[in-house]
């Protein structure tokens, strides 16, 4: 009951936000919150540190951009095409990567993501260093003109809410429980008769698909897809967001993404413009050293201790 009430307040805030805050910034925030939440699914709940999620995010961004710009698909189909593309890419990379654990898993995903990056830099349809620009936003459901920022915001909010709900559902389902068991003790889960490879692969593909959904939506918002979406910096940034917000919590990654995006946005035009990476680095080190559970994790622990 209390929880439902809290969610309703959050929803009301989200609906009112674009009338107070710049909608494009909010949309960016939502997209990255979804990206980080998708990443958290595999790291926080599956215990697999992927260092190649930018490939899914950036890949979907390019696929969607191309589908909308060159093929002239309607916006929803374009986003779906990008998301499906990221899912397939996730399946291909996942099949290889889940055979290994720990650092080897991270290295395989990184290597595959770098291969994807070099594909994107040299493939003619991505525009190389220039990126894909002038991607049309189009209409939602053929009725709502998305070139209006507020209309676009509600469209993005709907997509991201769908994504968050799917993640929350997956985490609290029997599938999520098995995933947690595999994370905590792989051998025991195997001895209980679970086909852990299949669970891991499914989680990986789900995470890649949702990361793709975030990337595809981002392309429509900004009307461009560029190499920085697919660069390994992006893979690193999403790790940072997730750890800062709180690993293995539902709200953590969204909070972490909000903090990072807000900071980047705020610092970009101040005296610290050239120091953004340093500031983020300091925050990361502080977070890892002093509050390892992340903002939401610490908050939850504090509430449990005190009440």
């Amino acid at each position, binding site marked *: 009951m209390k929880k439902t009430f809290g969610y309703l307040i959050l929803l009301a805030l989200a609906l009112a936000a674009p009338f107070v805050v710049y909608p494009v*910034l909010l949309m960016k925030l939502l997209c990255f919150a979804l990206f980080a939440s998708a990443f958290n699914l595999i790291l926080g709940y599956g215990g697999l540190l992927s260092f190649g999620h930018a490939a899914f995010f950036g890949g979907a961004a390019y696929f969607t951009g191309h589908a909308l710009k060159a093929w002239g698909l309607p916006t929803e189909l374009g986003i779906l095409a990008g998301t499906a593309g990221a899912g397939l890419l996730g399946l291909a990379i996942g099949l290889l990567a889940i055979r290994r654990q720990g650092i080897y898993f991270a290295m395989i995903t990184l290597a595959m993501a770098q291969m994807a990056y070099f594909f994107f830099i040299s493939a003619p349809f991505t525009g190389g*260093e220039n990126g894909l620009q002038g991607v049309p936003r189009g209409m939602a459901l053929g009725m709502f003109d998305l070139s209006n920022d507020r209309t676009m915001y509600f469209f993005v909010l709907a997509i991201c809410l769908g994504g968050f709900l799917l993640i929350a559902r997956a985490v609290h389902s029997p599938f999520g429980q098995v995933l947690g068991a595999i994370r905590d003790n792989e051998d025991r889960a195997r001895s209980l008769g679970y086909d852990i490879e299949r669970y891991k692969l499914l989680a990986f593909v789900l995470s890649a698909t949702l990361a793709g959904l975030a990337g595809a939506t981002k392309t429509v918002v900004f009307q*461009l897809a560029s190499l*920085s*979406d697919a660069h390994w910096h992006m893979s690193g940034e999403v790790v940072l967001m997730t750890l800062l917000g709180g690993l293995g919590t539902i709200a953590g990654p969204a909070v972490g993404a909000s903090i990072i995006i807000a900071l980047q946005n705020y610092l970009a035009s101040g005296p610290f413009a050239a120091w953004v990476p340093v500031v983020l680095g300091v925050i990361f080190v502080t977070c890892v050293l002093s509050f390892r559970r992340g903002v939401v994790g610490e908050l939850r622990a504090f509430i449990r201790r005190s009440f």
Partner: protein
Amino acid sequence: MKLFKKLAASASALALLASGASAEISDGVVKIGLLTDMSGTYSDVAGPGTVTAAEMAIEEFGGTVAGAPIELVSADHQNKADIAANKARQWGDTENVDAFAELVTTSVAMAVFEVAKQQNKIALVSGAASSPLTNDACIPTGLHWTYNTRAMGVGTGSAVVAEGGDSWFFLTADYAFGESLQKDVSKVVEAAGGKVLGSVKHPFPASDFSSFMLQAQASGAKVIGLANAGGDTINAIKAAKEFGIVDAGQKIAGLLVFLSDVHALGLDTAQGLQMTVSFYWDMNDETREWSKRFFDKTGKMPTGIQAGTYSAVRHYLKAIEATGSDDTDIIVAKMREMPVEDMFAHNAVLRTDGRMVHDMYLAEVKSPAESSGPWDYLKIVRTIPGEEAFGPLSESTCPTK
């Protein structure tokens, strides 16, 4: 009491006057958003120096134009199109920015063009070099000020071919600017009877040029053309020196070299290099006076991009002063109508395709013996008339020209 009344009356009259004068200035402020590379490959040729240059233009107006204050905001786009587009969009949407300035790196300029087109704002391009900006990729409010790749090709390309460098191999930065520069120079080389033997693309930005240099060496071309800029050009020239390519008889042609690059390379390495420049500080009293003021603020002599940013911002403000409005269409029309007249360009014109046509200069780097001191690096070999450098308007493929 009487005095008080008088004061109040004159104050309200003043207020009326002020509000009347700025009635046509949107939001009561003229705001320029400057996007540049503050910390990366192009931060020396453009970067913080362009902010200083724009500030100098604003200072000339005493900080106000047509009764409204002039504000300058700047941001680092890190040479990334997405960051630039997001920032420009935000400035236009929420901070009432009237014009975007500088925009080094072609991909950035193109991304900001997209935003400027949607929001109907002016883009004053100084640092980006690609000639498509006033051809296929042009927009009605995108003004390309300092130079372009065609002018570079005409200047350096033809000069090198005339000296017998008739077979070329290109080292090209792998994005729109590099491709555009290579294409424009190839045209000039082939028109002059030279041959292009091949090219290799390098990632942008790159630090290790050894494998590309070896390819260029193996091509057997007489001239290795560097279709890149900034830190990339410096690294490539250094690599060429390390591999003894120049000593072995091949010639390096830097197609987009700036004063700051010569400063970084040193005269020993750079001497004899021919380069096309839009501006050199030591040309006449006007340029020396302005550059000295610039030097006092930054500790460096200005590059063409920095001087061009000054000129573009100044001309933009001149148009606002003349019309008393900051409406995009009125200002662009006025900017075209008035000749560009300042220390950077004389009697230059802004064409309908967005190209600012002014004279360019072919320069040669002095030898250490010829140089009388720091920053005395170039001698002007030839003045290239604007029409020759940028081509006639009929040649432009801009659809809205």
